[in-house]
């Protein structure tokens, strides 16, 4: 939320947003599964100008060993922004306070999404690298990580579909970009499991009233359906030729 630029109007004269979108319009989303040969599972998500690559390894042995849980697997998530990813310089590469927080909330999202009870004493690594950022990188990272998990063959309850909503110029709008995020009144990233309608992530930064919160949740749930379509298409693009296949078992 910090910047040195002076605030500017966040809506055009015709009522549209600065990017020319309506309140509930998303940016262009592109996703790709299995982009890295060496990673067990990988995916890339391009969400407007955001660009995040995710890689997944596991389940595998946990180090240090005392972290292992004999009842279920554990998840280690790592969200990192590249030094060259933002408009302002991000300084030294590596984890900082903000990225540690996001790593933690992403871990909680996938702890409720992966069938961890099937993998006692093991760990799953999720790595997300933000290579270009323009507001809403945590939802882009979650979208990529969910696809990478599926690409790695790790059993999950559902595809995780994230979306960000926020209050800009007194209105609740969907999918904030960097300017709207920085100069708006508040933002509300969330992640859904659309099969059950469960909310896996719901954060809030800024000042939003109770009614606006509910409005934002509804708008987010609707917009998430569109994100889900892109995610499913990405998976089917890689594995689509499985249709009508013959798999003789012995």
């Amino acid at each position, binding site marked *: 939320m910090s910047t040195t630029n002076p605030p500017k109007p966040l809506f055009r004269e015709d009522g549209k947003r600065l990017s020319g979108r309506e309140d509930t319009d998303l940016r262009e989303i592109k996703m790709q599964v299995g982009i890295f040969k060496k990673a067990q599972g990988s995916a890339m998500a391009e969400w407007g100008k955001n660009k995040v690559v995710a890689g997944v390894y596991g389940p595998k042995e946990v180090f240090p060993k005392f972290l292992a849980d004999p009842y279920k697997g554990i998840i280690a998530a790592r969200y990192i922004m590249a030094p060259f990813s933002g408009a302002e310089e991000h300084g030294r590469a590596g984890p900082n306070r903000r990225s540690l927080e996001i790593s933690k909330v992403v871990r909680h999202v996938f702890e409720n999404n992966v069938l961890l009870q099937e993998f006692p004493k093991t760990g799953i690594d999720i790595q997300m690298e933000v290579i270009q950022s323009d507001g809403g990188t945590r939802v882009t990272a979650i979208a990529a990580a969910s696809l990478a998990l599926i690409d790695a063959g790790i059993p*999950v309850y559902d595809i995780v579909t994230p979306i960000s909503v926020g209050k800009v110029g007194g209105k609740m709008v969907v999918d904030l970009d960097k300017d709207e995020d920085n100069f708006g009144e508040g933002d509300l990233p969330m992640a859904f499991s659309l099969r059950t309608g469960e909310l896996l992530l719901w954060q809030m930064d800024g000042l939003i009233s109770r009614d606006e919160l509910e409005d934002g949740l509804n708008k987010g749930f609707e917009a998430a359906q569109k994100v889900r379509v892109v995610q499913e298409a990405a998976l089917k693009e890689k594995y689509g030729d499985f249709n009508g296949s013959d798999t003789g078992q012995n």
Partner: protein
Amino acid sequence: MIVLPGQKVADAAQPGQGVFIEDNKTYASTLAILRDGRVIPQKGQYKPLVEDFVVGLVKDVQFNGYHVDVNAPFESFISNRESLEEFKAGEVVSAKVVEVNELHEATLSQPRKFPPGTVIEISFVKVPRVIGRNGSMLDMIKTATGTEIFVGKNGRIFLTGGNIKLAIKAIGKIDAEAHTQGLTDAVKEFLEKNKENDA
């Protein structure tokens, strides 16, 4: 038909590979093919099951036995009461899974050292296709190349003798095209075409 994680595959509870059950209904948990009501996972890691024959790598030698890597995220152990042979770390053995505990840790028996040869690794979900119906695919590769082949259920395959290069290529082809139709004919054609090339 391809199913994605979270997609419903049956209205009744049908436990099996690659699925989970919620509210008495069955959902896919991995990318899978749904065929005749059966879910065939297309991704995933090996989990030891009793009666499986596996190809293991001896990781560690202890006074009472050996820790073995069976291509699974869980520990496996061979007691040295099972065999008069002694193994060294780094050796490749075949063994049978006799017991799996609640942590999916396997106890193996009947360890056998392999003769000199090659071990390759494929995705474990594709092992049934390498073997084929009643071993038809495997028999075909064996006769065409003259190679001795041992397929472990964990996705590791041991080969020795004959035209190994061609056998490895044929298995690689199965691994890459496991989901396609008429694979046996395609592999047959491939073997005949390349018989001379790699001899």
